């Protein structure tokens, strides 16, 4: 039963990883940007939650609305301010610029909120659980987080496939010049994509803050896990990212079942194994280029 329990917890953890990774996947899919500040931005979302809940004394659901909005605004400005230029310059530039953003934000958060670990008090919502069978109980918070991951991936997929803005994003991604001829302002479309990506990151960040203690340095782990989910799943495919998140969550959970010290290590090793055996990921959409 322990193993079934570990499997269930791992699947829910996987949904959380998919939620964390969806924005990384979207930014790569549309602009071919790998955002090294991604994990840090999730932690920034958690800190927005701290300000809303702990400092302003507002209820949790307000944080779940405010954090995505704040990060979306930041994302739009970041893309128009620096990243569009970085995309134009190409090569190593986007990686180095997002690296600089990560360094700046980490240390700003450290300066404002100190390096002490914090968490978002989630009260009864954080501790409630449902006993499904003997030795198998599902926490309400992990269940809601996992579900949020699935919903966000589905919503992004629908947005890209069915809406006018989503089509504009895919067009600007496939061929920016032709898209411009068709009347698409690709600078605006890119900024919109980054804003949406960071909104999901902000949402993920608030859940992160409820689930665990965090410090400004916690973003490193988030970036690594999100990245592993994206690569395991396959570049540019959102459903792949969901699958990658699930694989990572389940292997980490089963690994911890063997020995708590091995959870992360086994997750990394599964990632490296996928890289060795199936470098395009489980559900590849685009060529690795």
């Amino acid at each position, binding site marked *: 039963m322990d193993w079934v329990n570990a499997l269930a917890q791992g699947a829910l953890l996987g949904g959380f990883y998919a939620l964390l990774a969806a924005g990384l996947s979207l930014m790569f899919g549309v602009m071919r940007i790998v955002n090294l500040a991604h994990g840090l931005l999730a932690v920034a979302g958690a800190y927005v939650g701290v300000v809303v809940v702990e400092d302003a004394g507002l209820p949790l659901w307000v944080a779940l609305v405010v954090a995505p909005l704040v990060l979306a605004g930041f994302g739009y400005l970041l893309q128009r301010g620096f990243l569009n230029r970085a995309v134009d310059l190409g090569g190593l530039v986007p990686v*180095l610029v997002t690296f600089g953003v990560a360094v700046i934000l980490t240390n700003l958060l450290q300066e404002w909120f100190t390096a002490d670990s914090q968490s978002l008090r989630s009260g009864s919502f954080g501790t409630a659980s449902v006993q499904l069978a003997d030795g198998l109980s599902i926490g309400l918070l992990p269940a809601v987080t996992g579900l949020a991951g699935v919903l966000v991936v589905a919503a992004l997929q629908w947005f890209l496939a069915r809406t006018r803005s989503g089509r504009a994003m895919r067009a600007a991604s496939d061929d920016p010049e032709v898209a411009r001829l068709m009347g698409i302002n690709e600078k605006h479309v890119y900024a919109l994509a980054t804003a949406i990506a960071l909104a999901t990151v902000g949402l993920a960040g608030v859940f992160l803050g409820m689930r665990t203690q965090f410090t400004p340095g916690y973003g*490193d782990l988030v970036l690594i896990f999100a990245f592993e989910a994206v690569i395991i799943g396959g570049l540019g495919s959102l459903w792949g990212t969901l699958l990658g998140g699930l694989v990572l969550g389940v292997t980490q959970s089963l690994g911890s079942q063997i020995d708590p010290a091995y959870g*992360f290590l086994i997750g990394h090793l599964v990632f*490296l194994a996928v*890289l060795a055996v199936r470098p395009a990921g489980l559900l590849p959409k685009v060529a690795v280029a």
Partner: protein
Amino acid sequence: MSAQTPAQQSATEPTPKPTAGSTAAAAPEKGGAHAAPSDTPTVRARVRRASLSSWIGAAVMLAVLAVLAMGPYVFDRGLQQRLVLLFALVVMGTAWNLLAGYGGMVSIGQQAFVGLGAYGLVYFGDVLGLSPFVAIVVGVLVAGLVSIPISWLTFRLVGGYFAIGTWVVAEVLRLVVAQTDAVGGGAGFTVRSFGGLDAVYRIAFVYWFGLAGAVVMVAATYLLMRSRLGLGFTAIRDDAVAAASLGVRVTLSKRIVYVVAAMGAAFGGGLTAANTLRVQPDSAFSISFTVAMIFVVVIGGIGSIEGPIVGAIVYWVLQDQLAQLGSWYLVILGAIVIAVTLYAPRGLWGLVSRGGRLRPFPVGYRLLDLPSAPSRTTAAAGAAAPDTPERN
């Protein structure tokens, strides 16, 4: 600067075309003449690599080296230990520059090899009982060997994903080392293999060892970049596809760069461990080493040999001067990285060297006596172009 605009452009922003040309320019060097296409008159020109600025630069560097070599007789122990950090920065920055500046690979996982170097000192020195300096060298060689199978995995990723992939490898090594009790596990290890050596001698020997390592790393990079292999690296940096079409073995070249960069990082790790005598998984495999390498290279000037040296000195001085600023110091450095990357991609050295005319390490070719081109038509790195007359 404005008087030189066309030449300047070819120097600061090498394009595939001049590089392809320089490959051709290398061949007729002996004859001292370059055969132009048959419908234009033959152009006779001499090909030179060094210039007056290179000779002056070399003299200045030798003088500085001579002073540094006397360090243990002149400097107090604190300054010697701080200078060891500078030497480590020069080695690691030069290594990272090889990787990113010439190989086109941004890695944020070089701490994997920094840690291996540090644990090389622990394992071969303390556990197996070799002399600590031999242990560091063995550790560097082992890190080079280990980097080959690692490259099989990480080379499956490109761009930003390669960057994070290398980081995962570093995390795996950190977690494994933290579980290995023979080298102290998670708690770390205190290096004792310097044992009988008096502190004064230990610090002096580590200092000379670090200085020698920095000189070897820079000299090796210089010789590498002047060689045929280096010409290939420059071509890959400018355009990997074009380089491949001209017969450069891109993947093999990148792998060589990766191995050399791993060895440089490992030396930095071993040297740092010998300086502090304390090795701990979380700090030896800390990403802050790679962050420092990126600062050093980007601020100094990516893609030049001089850049990382300048960057290391600037970073080392700033670190000392701005330490009391705490987090704000890194905020400032991060902002500088963004500004330099977007607006001055050749870094401080690019600004100082006036578009490549000042070259203490001449790795490119220059054509003299061209009838219609200014004799100072130069290139930063292998970008001298036989098509310069047509362009003017």
